C-alpha cells in the first residue's frame, strides 16, 4: 500500500506551500552571493585572460609556483567557492604558491581564437611569466578537466618548462563506452555549428549538462530546496553552486571546433594525431612526473577516460589518485577538502 491518506497528503502539500512562502522571504534577505573568497592579485593580463596569484598562507611558500589551468567551460571560482570549500585554500595551507588562469568571457571578437592561441600563446605566456617571476626553469602545472587536456598538450609541446604535471578529472581517451558527452556530440555537425553561430553559446552547454540528468538537476533539486529555506547558510551554499552552474561563458568558435572534432569526435589525442598549430602533440613527450587525479563516480569524465593516460604518457614517475566522489564533488565536497589538496601538495612537495 502507498501508506498515505488523502488528508495526510493534503497536509504535506500545505506545509510545502508554507515553506515556499517562507523561502521567498529568506531569499530576498540574502543579498549578493559572493564566490571566489581567497585574496589574490592580478600579475599578468593578455586580451581577456588574467593570471592571478593567490596570497600565500604560509610564511615561506614552496619556491616552484603551481599554475592552475582551468577548463574553458564554466568559471574557475569553483576552485575557491567559499572559505570552507576551496581547493585553492587547501593548496595554499599546504605551503604552495598558487597561480590561476582566468580565461574571462569570450565574445564575438574572439571567435577566431583557436587552441593554438590558448596553448602556444596564452598558457605559454603565463608559464613564462611565472618562470621569470619566480626564477625557475620549470614550474608545476595543474590542469582541471578540459584544462587538464590543454595542459597535457602544453606539457607535450614544452616539456622543458614543466617540472611536475597534475591532471584532475581530465579526459584523455574520449571514446570510452561510458563517455556521455562524446555520445551526445557524435552526430552534431560541428562545422555548421561554428560557421553558423561563431562562438558556442554558454546556454547550449548548460542545456547539454542539464540534459544528462534533468529530473534531478532541473526538478528534484528545487523541490528539495524547500528543506533548507530556514537555514540561511545552507541556502547561500546552494546559491553559490547555482550561480556557478549557470555562469557559462561562450566558447571561442575555432577553439571549440578543434576540441569538438579532434578530441571528442575523432579521439585524436590518444592516437597521437592532434596538431596544435603546426606542431604534433605526442603524449610520449610528457616525461616529467605526472599525478593523474580522477573521480571514481565521475559522470562527465569517466575514470577510464582519465586513466588512459597511464598507457600513453612517457613519464617514468606516473601516479594516480582516485577520489571517491563525482566530477563536482571533487572540488566542493567536505571529503574533497580533507583529502585532495593534501594529496596533491604532498605529491608535489616530494618532487
Amino acid at each position: 500500500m502507498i501508506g498515505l491518506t488523502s488528508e495526510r497528503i493534503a497536509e504535506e502539500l500545505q506545509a510545502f506551500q508554507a515553506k515556499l512562502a517562507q523561502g521567498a522571504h529568506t531569499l530576498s534577505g540574502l543579498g549578493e552571493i559572493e564566490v571566489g573568497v581567497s585574496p589574490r592579485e592580478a600579475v599578468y593580463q593578455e586580451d581577456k585572460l588574467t593570471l592571478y596569484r593567490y596570497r600565500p598562507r604560509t610564511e615561506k611558500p614552496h619556491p616552484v609556483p603551481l599554475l592552475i589551468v582551468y577548463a574553458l567551460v564554466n568559471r574557475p571560482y569553483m576552485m575557491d567557492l567559499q572559505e570552507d570549500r576551496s581547493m585553492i585554500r587547501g593548496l595554499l595551507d599546504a605551503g604552495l604558491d598558487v597561480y590561476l588562469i582566468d580565461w574571462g568571457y569570450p565574445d564575438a571578437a574572439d571567435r577566431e581564437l583557436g587552441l593554438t592561441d590558448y596553448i602556444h600563446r596564452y598558457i605559454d605566456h603565463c608559464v613564462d611569466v611565472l618562470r621569470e617571476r619566480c626564477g625557475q626553469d620549470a614550474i608545476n602545472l595543474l590542469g582541471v578537466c578540459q584544462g587538464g587536456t590543454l595542459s597535457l598538450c602544453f606539457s607535450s609541446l614544452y616539456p622543458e618548462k614543466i617540472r611536475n604535471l597534475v591532471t584532475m578529472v581530465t579526459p584523455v581517451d574520449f571514446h570510452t563506452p561510458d563517455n556521455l558527452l562524446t555520445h551526445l556530440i557524435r552526430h552534431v555537425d560541428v562545422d555548421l555549428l561554428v560557421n553558423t553561430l561563431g562562438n558556442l553559446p554558454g546556454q547550449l552547454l548548460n542545456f547539454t549538462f542539464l540534459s544528462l540528468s534533468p529530473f534531478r538537476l532541473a526538478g528534484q533539486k528545487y523541490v528539495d530546496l524547500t528543506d533548507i529555506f530556514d537555514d540561511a547558510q545552507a541556502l547561500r551554499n546552494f546559491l553559490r553552486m547555482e550561480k556557478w552552474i549557470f555562469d557559462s561563458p561562450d566558447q571561442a568558435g575555432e577553439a571549440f571546433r578543434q576540441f569538438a572534432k579532434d578530441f571528442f569526435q575523432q579521439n585524436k589525442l590518444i592516437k597521437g594525431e592532434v596538431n596544435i598549430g603546426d606542431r604534433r602533440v605526442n603524449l610520449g613527450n610528457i616525461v616529467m612526473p605526472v599525478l593523474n587525479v580522477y573521480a571514481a563516480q565521475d559522470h562527465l569524465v569517466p575514470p577510464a577516460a582519465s586513466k588512459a593516460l597511464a598507457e600513453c604518457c612517457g613519464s617514468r614517475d606516473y601516479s594516480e589518485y582516485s577520489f571517491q566522489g563525482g566530477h563536482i564533488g571533487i572540488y566542493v565536497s567536505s571529503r574533497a577538502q580533507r583529502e585532495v589538496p593534501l594529496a596533491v601538495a604532498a605529491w608535489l612537495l616530494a618532487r
Partner: protein
Amino acid sequence: MFDVELLIKQSRAYLAFGEQIRRFTEQFPSDPQPTDWDTALRQHFDRFKAMVAQSSEDSNLNPDLAQLWTLTLESWQQAASSLGISAIASRAGPSADAWQVYQQILGEYFELLRQSAMTALDLMEKRLRDRAVAGEAAGSLRELFNLWVDCNEETYGRMLRGAEYSELSGRLLNALLGCRASGETTP
C-alpha cells in the same frame, strides 16, 4: 543570479504531482483489500499516463503536470531561444523547408521524451506493487516524488545512452542551425 522562476515552476509541478497521488488515495477506505488496491493502482496509473499523453497534445490542459516530464524539452527551447531562434518566421521560400524539417525532428524528440515518461510511470507502478508485496509503505508524499524521479532518471538515462537519442539530438541541433543558417529567424 538565482532564477526564482525555476523554483516556482518545479514547485507547481510537485504540487500537481501531489494532487494526482491525493486523488488516488482518496478512492480508498482506510484498509482496502489488496485486490482492490491492485486494480485501483493499475487504473490510476493508466489515467496518469493518459494525462501525460493528453498534455503532449494540448499543453494547456495541465501545464503544471506536464512540467514534470517536459524539463528537457523546455531546457532545449531556452537554449534554442538563446541562439535567436525563438521566433522563426514561417514565410514561404526555401527557408520554410528548413523550419519544417526542424519542426518534424522536434516532434520526434518530443515523442521520445514522452515515451520515456510513460515507461517511467510503468516502472513506478511496478515498484509500488513490489513494495506492497514486500509490505513496505511510503512514509510521505516526498518519498513517492523521489521514487518518481528515480524511475524517470532510470528510463531517461537508458534512452539518453541509446543510439537513437544520440542520432536524434544531433539531428535536432543540426536542423535548428539549418534554420538559422537559412536566415529563417526574426529578431
